[in-house]
Structures are given as structure tokens and as C-alpha cells.
């Protein structure tokens, strides 16, 4: 069992002061094995903070990140799953599932994680999953009116991944869960 934290679009300090304290108290070091971050952190303090939760940190570059070392997209393999990571402003129309699916095919991944819209979504798509963890700080977005802070925790176990979504609604953390099973054949075709 591997726990992967997916989050992004924090936009500190441009659009938000910090992560909600309730999230901070949940994200304690030592429990999470990997962090994948969809970008727009935007300052080093946030990068350092994420490092304290888990040193295995994968970040792609959002359009407000000044750190040029972050790549545009990234793939990594965790257990039996291949994950793709991209901020999402590169994929036009923004947040469009069919266009994201093209990126998923291009990266050839089971799980594609993107951000940019500040809206949590998770779709099962062509035998894969497309996830957007939303904005961890609930940052302002011109795409979405009402942004609630949210992040995603993926519990990867063998061919199964359980996606937990944590969303802060009116000061309360709501948890949702999506189950996804990979059919072992789905990605092995030539």
C-alpha cells in the first residue's frame, strides 16, 4: 500500500495566504510516500513545506511558478500504476476532458493528474483515470467561481487505487472516495 498526495494551485502568496490550518494538521510527515504537485506553488516556502511532509516530491510547472527547474510534465511509476503529471494550462480548452485524454494517451499513463481549473474532478476514462485535485488553498480562479480548498490522496495497492478527495466546505472537511481498478491488460497492448 502506497499513499500518494496530489495537490496543486496553491498560489501563495498571490491568491491565498496559506494552506487551511485544517489541511495542515492532516498533512503530517511520515504517512505519505510520494507527493505529486500540479504546480503554482508559487513561492519557495511552499516547496519547503511540502518537502517536510514527504521528501519524494514531484512538481510540474504552473504558469505562475518562477522556478524554471520544474518540468512542463512528468511521468512516474508507482507500484503497478503509471502516473502522468501536468499543470494543465498547456491543454486547450482548459479542463476539457477529451483534450486531457489526448495528453493521457500521449504520456501513456494510467492516471493523469492535472490542475489549473481549481476544481476537483476525477473521471474514469478509457480504462484510466483523469484527476484534478483542485486548489489546496481554495485560491481564486477565473475559471471557477466558487473554489473550495481541496486535495487528493491516492491509496495505491496492487492493481487497485482508491482516490480520496478532501474538500473544505464551510470550515468542515468532507471526504469522498472513488475506487478504481486497473485491468491488467489495459496498457499492455502493443
Amino acid at each position, binding site marked *: 500500500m502506497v499513499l500518494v498526495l496530489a495537490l496543486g494551485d496553491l498560489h*501563495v*502568496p*498571490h*491568491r*491565498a*495566504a*496559506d494552506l487551511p*490550518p485544517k489541511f495542515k494538521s492532516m498533512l503530517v510527515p511520515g504517512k505519505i510516500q510520494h507527493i505529486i504537485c500540479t504546480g503554482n506553488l508559487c*513561492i519557495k*516556502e511552499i516547496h519547503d513545506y511540502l518537502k517536510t511532509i514527504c521528501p519524494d516530491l514531484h512538481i510540474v510547472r504552473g*504558469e*505562475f511558478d518562477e522556478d524554471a527547474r520544474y518540468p512542463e510534465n512528468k511521468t512516474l511509476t508507482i507500484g503497478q500504476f503509471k502516473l502522468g503529471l501536468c499543470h494543465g*494550462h*498547456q491543454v*486547450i*480548452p*482548459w479542463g476539457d476532458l*477529451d*483534450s486531457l*485524454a*489526448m495528453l493521457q*494517451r*500521449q504520456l*501513456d499513463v494510467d492516471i493523469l493528474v492535472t490542475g489549473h481549473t481549481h476544481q476537483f474532478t476525477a473521471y474514469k476514462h*478509457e*480504462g484510466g483515470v483523469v484527476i484534478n485535485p483542485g486548489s489546496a488553498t481554495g485560491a*481564486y480562479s*477565473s*475559471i471557477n*467561481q466558487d473554489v473550495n480548498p481541496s486535495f487528493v490522496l491516492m491509496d495505491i495497492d496492487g492493481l487497485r487505487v482508491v482516490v480520496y478527495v478532501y474538500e473544505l466546505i464551510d470550515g468542515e472537511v468532507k471526504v469522498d472516495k472513488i475506487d478504481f481498478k486497473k485491468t491488467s491488460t489495459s*496498457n499492455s*497492448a*502493443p
Partner: protein
Amino acid sequence: MIADGAEDEEKWLAAGAAAFKQNAFYMQRAIDSNNLKDALKYSAQMLGELRTSKLSPHKYYDLYMRAFDELRKLEIFFMEETRRGCSVIELYELVQHAGNILPRLYLLCTAGSVYIKTKEAPAKDILKDLVEMCRGIQHPLRGLFLRSYLAQVSRDKLPDIGSEYEGDADTVTDAVEFVLLNFTEMNKLWVRMQHQVSHDLCCIACESLPFDDPELRLAVGLSGLQGPAREKERRERERSELRDLVGKNLHVLSQLEGVDLDMYRDTVLPRVLEQIVNCRDEIAQIYLVDCIIQVFPDEYHLQTLDVLLGACPQLQPSIDIMTVLSRLMERLSSYAALNVEVLPYFLQVEAFSKLNNAIGKVIEAQEDMPILSAVTLYSSLLKFTLHVHPDRLDYADQVLGSCIKQLSGKGKIDDSRATKEIVTLLSAPLEKYNDVVTALKLTNYPLVMEYLDNETKRIMATVIIRSIMKNNTLIATAEKVEALLELIGGLINDPDESQGVEVDEDDFEEGQNSVARLIHMLYNDDPEEMFKIISILKNHFLTGGPKRLKFTVPPLVVSALKLIRRLPVEGDNPFGKEASVSATKIFQFLNQAIKLGQIPLVLNQLCYSLRFLSLSVGAFCLLQIIEALPNVPSPDLAFRLYLQCAEAANKCDEEPIAYEFFTQAYILYEEEISDSKAQVTALQLIIGTLQRMHVFGVENRDTLTHKAMGYSSKLLKKPDQCRAVYGCSHLFWLEDHEAIQDGERVLLCLKRALKIANSAQQMISTAQGSSTVSVTLFIEMLNKYLYFYEKGIPQITVESVESLIKLIKNEEPMASDPSAESFFASTLRFMEFQKQKGGAIGDRYEEIKV
């Protein structure tokens, strides 16, 4: 020479110890054989060793301890003797036959102790006799130890209430009188040590002695230890080693059952203070006042605050009264913290005003008191009042006011320790109330900050912001925001004079980022008030210079965009067009703000003039008035903000404004964004934003899309060109906007992108490089064709899809590139998947022959 001194002393101690041991041995033998006469003789000889003047207090103490042990044995022997029939009165006479006075008095004390135990005379009479007799020794060191012995043996024999030696009605007074007398005499001896001609030992190695007192150690370290100064320090150090002998008496007093509050207030405290004040000795005063504070109960202090504080200004002007008072206040605050029920007493005795007055007087009395001490005193007083009277904000403000009085006329503080203390002082209310809004009510608070140097102001500003962040304090009114900005001026403005060192780049960034975070805490639900807040922020940031704008403008813009979202669209504005806050007005404001971020501007007149113009004209006029200046700190950021604003204007159906923002973004793209990688991202943002705009009429839309297409085909690298151009295809087909569904132009875009992909391939093959990039481009193109084919755009034909698949299959090097291969494989799988879906989509995919 120092070494010699130490060695000599060792020698003397050794010689004394040897003679002592011998006599102790004979004494013991006499005791064993019940020979009182010999026991007295040898004990007197043994005690004679204590007459030495050659030992330092430290070594003398060693010898004294040995004597003490031996005297215990002798006392037991005396006790046995009385049981065997020897009259204690006789014994008391007998011991006085000793030849030398010092041994005689030690023996007398020992016999006296036995005398009291037998209860053949009242304890008070014997004690009185002993304490008077001890006057016979006036040598400070010997006298101190003798009296110390007396205190030790009498401790459990005082006629205290409840004690077995309790006497008549005034018994407690007798006990107290005895201890007070002994204390007074001991203190006199102790003080006299300071002025005594050095004992025969001229030098003692400082290193050989333990330094208990850190201040003393410091003093020794600083002095260089030369001549008389060194002599003085040595003496002071020696005295410090002996202070507990004197202090012990106060401890005994505090332990007496009979010393109740009345006794303490009427007798003990006045008498002790009298001695302390009159001795005029710094070391004694500082130690003993502290001793009083530490050994007697808090409750007593509270009730006798007048007396205790009244004595303070009478102490020697050079003593460190600050530490003493600070500790008193500390004790009282923790007393109040632990016992809530005593709070009424604090009010009843007016503890705060008494302390405040006392501090004022002390500072007045000590003219050259360093600023550090004064600030520390007020810092302690502030902590005291915050703990004891958290509801009395006026007290806290009063303390700050008094502090200012001390600071005024002295300019900026240049003592770094004093500065630190002021930071502590100013942080105290923040820590206590966890709410900066409360601190903002303290009118003297900003005035104290005036006395800080720029660096410290900056630190203080950071402390304030951190407190706000930690406690999630919302600052909700324009007035408070204004006050807060004054307080954190250290981070918002450049120093007026170029004093001090340049701020470190990282520190600067950290500071500005914290200001940026702070902006999110300044919020009011009422749009009118919120707009005021934003305007105040803008005015302050304007004065902060261009370096800071890069950090402060983005959150300000976001704050304004959030406000716009809460406003009704202009047409529905219930207040009509004259309403003071409208989306238009904010957009105008934003335009300025971003330009500020990009180019510092003269813009204050705008907000006012625009209220009276109609919307669209307003936005245009705005641009006419704006007077651009050079200097561009962050065009990338400004570019992004313009697009954000354009999208917000789109939501508000403000076409001209949206168009204006777009134009501004385009200008920046053309003029300022030159790095090819930055251009790719910028163009993605342009196309992505433009794709979402529905506010534009045909004409504006055409102009903007046309330009975006132009930028796309001018990118540096072919693959980037290709991707940007096929991205543009989405500008002509909006799923939910029938007005924007132009299949012809979608096809045109895709064809142009394909052409670029082709030329990219040719370029690469002529360079004989790998053409995998272009294969990938072709597969991307295929996916785009499929995307629009699936949407049912008639111009995207099944033939065009098929020919693209054929083209990709014919590409040789694909096998050599696994990523292109898997991309193609998953695309084919996707097509199969869609075919299986059935329905209209399935039918369309059914038509494609792979």
C-alpha cells in the same frame, strides 16, 4: 605570584587542618572517657584554628564545616553530661573559661543550645544572651561564621508559636527579635568585609575559585584584573560567596509560624528594609531585596507593595534595581495566573499604579540609568498588567506611554539589546491577545515604534504579520487597515534615510511575501468598505517603490477581482450607475494597478474622474489619461494579470474593458516577452483565455484571434508553432456557443498545423536527425482531427483522418521511438474504444478504416 598565593593558602589550610585533626582526636578521646575538662580543653584548642586570618572565605568555610561536625559530637556529649547530673548552668559557666574569645563563644553557643533543650531557662533569655555575646567578635569573616553557627544551632529552638520552646504572649516577637538582631549584625559584618584591609593573603588565584555569580564573572573578565580594581573584585567575589549565610536569616524568618501578615508588615519587613537601606552597600542591597522577594509569600508582597516599592528609590543609585523589580513583577504575575481568586486583591491594592509609580520614581532617581534597563522595566510591567489585568487595555497603553516618555528626546535607539527589549515589549500584547486588532487600539503602540531603527521596524512588522497569520485575524475596516499599514511600514516603505545595511535579498523577498500573504487577511463583506481597503493598500504600496510592486500588486489584483465577483453586474446594480463601487470602477483601478506592477504610473486622479463616465467610454478614457513611465520589473506577471482581468471582465459582460485588457496583454507579449520558452507559455495562456471569452463581438474576436494565429506561426521552433496553431483551432469551435462554430476555420488551422509539422519533418530529415518529434506531432495532429471529427464537424472528413493514420504508419523511425509508438498505440486503442461505445460516436468511428 598568583600560584604562590594559592599554594601558600593550601599550605596553611593543610597545617591548620592537621592541628585541628589532632585536637579533635584528643577531644574525642576525652569524650569517650567522659572527661569534661579535657573535652573542653581540646575543643577550645581545636576551635582556635578558626582564628586564622590566612584563609580565603572558601577555604575558611571548609574548616568551619569540620568544626561544625565536631561540635555536634560535643553537643551530644554535653547533653549526656547534663543527664549524668552535671548542672547545665554550671556547664554554661564552665565553657566561658576558655582562653580565647572565639573558641569561647563557639562553646558557649553549643552549651546554650543544650541549655535551651533542658528548658531550665526560657529560650528567649538564653538566645538573647548568646546573640549579644557574639558581638565580641568583630572580625567580619570570623564573626559571620560564628553567627552563622548560632543561627544554625538555634534554628529549631526558637520560641515560635507551636514550638516546644514557645514562651509567653510575646513569644513570636522574641523569636523574630532574635533572628532580626542576628541578621542585622551579620549584615553589618558582611558589609564591613568590603572595606576591610585585605586579609594576610595578598593574592588568590581567581581561577581556583568557583564563580557562582555570572555578573561577577563578567566583571572579572572585563577588568583585566589589575591592581586595586582586581583587589576590589576579589573581595566582591568573596563576599558573594558568603551572601547565603546572611540570607539564611531571612529564610528562617519566613519559616516561622508566628510571622503572619501583620507581623511581617509591622515588624519584619520594615526592620529588614531599614537595615538594607542603611547599610548603603550595593551587593547587600541587591541580594537582600531579591531575597525578600523570593522567600516571603506572594500574598505578603501584594499587601505590602507600598513599603517594598517605597524602599526602592532609597537604595544606592547604581544598583541594578531593574532585575529586582522585574522579578517581583514576574512573581506577582504568575501568582495571579495561578490563583484567579486573588485578582480582586490586585485591584484593591492598586498594584498596577503602585508599580507604575515606583518604576517612574526609580528611573527618576537613577539619572544615568541605561535605556535598556528602563525598557526592560516597562517590558516587565507590561507583561505584568497583561497577565493580571488583561481587560485593562488602558493600563497597557499607559505603560507604553511611560516608555515613550523615557525614549523621547533620545532619537533612534542604537543599543541593540535595548532594541531587542523593545521588540519583546511590543510583541507582548500580540502574544497575549492573539489579535492584532486589540493592539491597534493601543494609541501609544505606533509611537513606540517610531524609536526603532529601520531594520528593527522591519522585524517588528514581520512579528505583527506573523501574529495575524497565526491567529487568522481578519482586519475588516479601512481605518484599521490604515493603522496596520502604519505599523508595518518597515516592510512597505523604503527607509527614508539610507542608514544601516542593505537588506539581504532573501530577507527582502521573505518580507514582501509576508506582506502579500497579509493582503488576504484584509477583508470586508461590504463592497464599499472593501473597495476603500483596496484603495488604501494601493496608495501605500505606491510609496513603496517599484521593487516591492512585483510582490504586492498580484494579491491586490486578486483581491479586487474577488470583489468584482461579489458585485451585481452593472445593469442590475441596485444603486444605479452613480453607486460608488461598481465593477467598472474596479476594472479601471485594476488597469492602473497592473500597470503599476509593470510600470509605475501617476494615477490617483483616475479613480475619481471615472465615476462619472459611462462604462465603455470610461475604460477608454482611462487609457488616454494613463501616463506611462519606463522601468519594467515584471512583464511576465503583468501579462498574466491582464489576462485574468480580461476573463473577469468577460464574466461581467464588459466587452470594451475585456478588449482593453487583452490589448494590454498583447502589447506586453510583443514588446516585453522575448524568451522563446516564455513565449510558448504566454501564447498558451493567450489562446486558453481567448478560447473562453464569449463577450466579444465578431469584429473584436476576429482581430484578437487573427493576432493569436500570427503569434503562433512566429514562434521560434517548428513543433511549438505546430502545437500553438492546432491549439488555435479551438478558438473557432465553442461547444456551447453556436455563434462560434466555424468548421472551415477549424480545418484551416489544422491544415496549417499539419503543414508546419511537415516542414518540421523535412528540416529534420535534411539535417539527418531523428524525426521522432515530427512523428509525435503527426500523432498529436491525428488526435486533434479525431477530436473535431467526433464532434461532427463536417469539414473534418473521414478521409483526412485515414490519410493521417496512413502517413504515420509509413513513418519509418517510429519503431525506434517507444514513446511515439505507445502514443500511436494508445490512440488506436482509443479509436477502438470509441467504436465499441456504439451510438452516434461509435458510428462515426466505425467509418474510419484503419
